[in-house]
């Protein structure tokens, strides 16, 4: 062994090095698009109407006393992916399992049970996606039955009228009068159907210069009972489809 180099000294140095123990890390955020929902009216109604009173396209009047809708995923579609690529995607088999859809950089796959609430204006945060830089023209919102670890389930089950949304896409209850002078009748509907909608995003652009943006979709709840009349009770109408069609394109904004 080389006399001038003691292995003990070298190993001690190594031991000291490991004692520093250490390590560190840092994170530099990339593209982030915050997604949220709110509720709004699509049609004007007389000032005396209650906050959740509506008149549908058939002239029926209703008051919603409770409602929950499950948003199972929100996916961004790059501008290039509308057109024939989108058609191909529509033709592909769509899974209907009641489970989390897979999240990826352009898709928020965590299901949220959204409470309609008592009044408009509340902002419901869905989460954020971290997509590649680019321009996004559309977002696809999918409404599907909630799985057993969807966010918002507990809140739905805790309310004044507890609702178990597992396996349900839409829960709606209230009163319904099929004519202006008709007697309001209570109704409650629970649906487990699926619907999706592609919503225009008005050129949401994410780049290194502008890495963060937020979009807020609005659900125009007063169209949810469209198609309901004396001959067609709520349960026989595609209410989940109405919910999907009620999504209003958001205006994009910076953080």
């Amino acid at each position, binding site marked *: *062994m*080389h*006399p001038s*180099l*003691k*292995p*003990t000294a*070298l*190993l*001690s140095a*190594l*031991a000291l*090095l*490991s*004692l*520093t*123990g*250490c*390590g*560190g*890390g*840092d*994170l*530099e*955020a*990339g*593209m*982030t698009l915050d997604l949220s929902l709110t509720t709004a009216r699509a049609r004007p109604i007389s000032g005396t109407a209650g906050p959740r009173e509506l008149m549908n396209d058939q002239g029926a009047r209703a008051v919603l006393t409770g409602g929950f809708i499950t948003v199972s995923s929100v996916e961004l579609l790059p501008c290039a992916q509308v057109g024939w690529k989108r058609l191909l995607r529509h033709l592909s088999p769509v899974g209907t399992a009641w489970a989390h859809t897979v999240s*990826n*950089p*352009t898709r928020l796959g965590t299901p949220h049970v959204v409470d309609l609430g008592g009044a408009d204006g509340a902002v419901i945060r869905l989460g954020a996606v*971290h*997509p*590649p*830089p680019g321009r996004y023209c559309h977002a696809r919102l999918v409404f599907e039955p909630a799985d057993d670890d969807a966010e918002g389930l507990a809140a739905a089950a805790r309310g004044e009228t507890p609702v178990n949304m597992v396996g349900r896409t839409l829960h709606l209850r209230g009163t319904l009068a099929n004519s202006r002078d008709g007697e309001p009748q209570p109704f409650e509907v629970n649906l487990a159907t699926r619907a999706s909608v592609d919503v225009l995003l008005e050129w949401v652009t994410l780049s*290194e210069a502008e*890495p963060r943006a937020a979009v807020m979709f609005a659900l125009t709840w007063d169209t949810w009972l469209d198609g309901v009349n004396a001959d067609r009770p709520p349960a026989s109408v595609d209410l989940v489809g109405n919910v999907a069609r009620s999504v209003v394109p958001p205006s994009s904004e910076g953080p």
Partner: protein
Amino acid sequence: MKNALTTSLLLSVALLLIPSSSAWACATCACGDPTLMSMGTEQPFEGRLRLSSTLRGWGHTVGQDGVNALRLREARMDLAVAYAPLPWLFLSATLPLQAREVRDVSLTRERGWGIGELELTAKAFLFRDKAFSANHLFSVLGGVKLPTAPVLRGPDGELMNLDAQLGSGSVDPLAGLAYQHFRGSWSFLVSATGFLPTRGLQGFRAGASIRSTLAAQYQPSAKWALRLGFDGRLETPADVDGEREENGGGFIGYASPDVLFSPGMDVVVAAGVRVPVINQLRGRVSPTPIAMLSVAYDL
């Protein structure tokens, strides 16, 4: 901190176990073979103590560009010490110092640096045709990789991405065997080592793997040598809490040319590259070539 203490303890134990008796001044003289050997392939003789440092740069991209690609780049320096307390036994410890960067498709960057996971191995030479200047060596290897790397967290205190962590945080046993043949200016190596990772950080378990090396070395002079090898890795897919990773698992093979040079007695410098030539990994895994530079010194 716990990991650091574990590392220190193990190194201290190793330190205590190493006797300070003197050995041969010339390592190649001591084993009777002038072949320049990189770390891990040396012939043993009682009291041989070898230190080495290996620099490596490598990376890979997993996933689809512009969709979900995740790019990893790492620079690491492995500090290793190997000691032969008996003529047939080599004990070694390797501690990596690592710096890595992970960039996902959204351009989010995570960087981690620090000490990595300590690997302890014992290599027993079960057969040699001659006690001195052996032509045939057969050895078996056993060891373990320990979770000595710190668990890295981002500025917000959240755990950093698994790929940005410096190790898997698991105790991974390994075992292997090797055969070496020396014939004049030529030498040959065949080895296979199996790894059986356990579950570690964030529910992650790397796939079980077998890593093999097939190499031939030509040494036209005492000072330098050329080595050409083929390194293969056959592995099962990794999983997180039982859910199989979409990408990875399968087989990958590298062509591994090296140049070995001895600038002075008992010093071997090796430089080389590992070029992926066969990629049969599942999904989309695109590895970069691995650049390597090492220095080994016999004390």
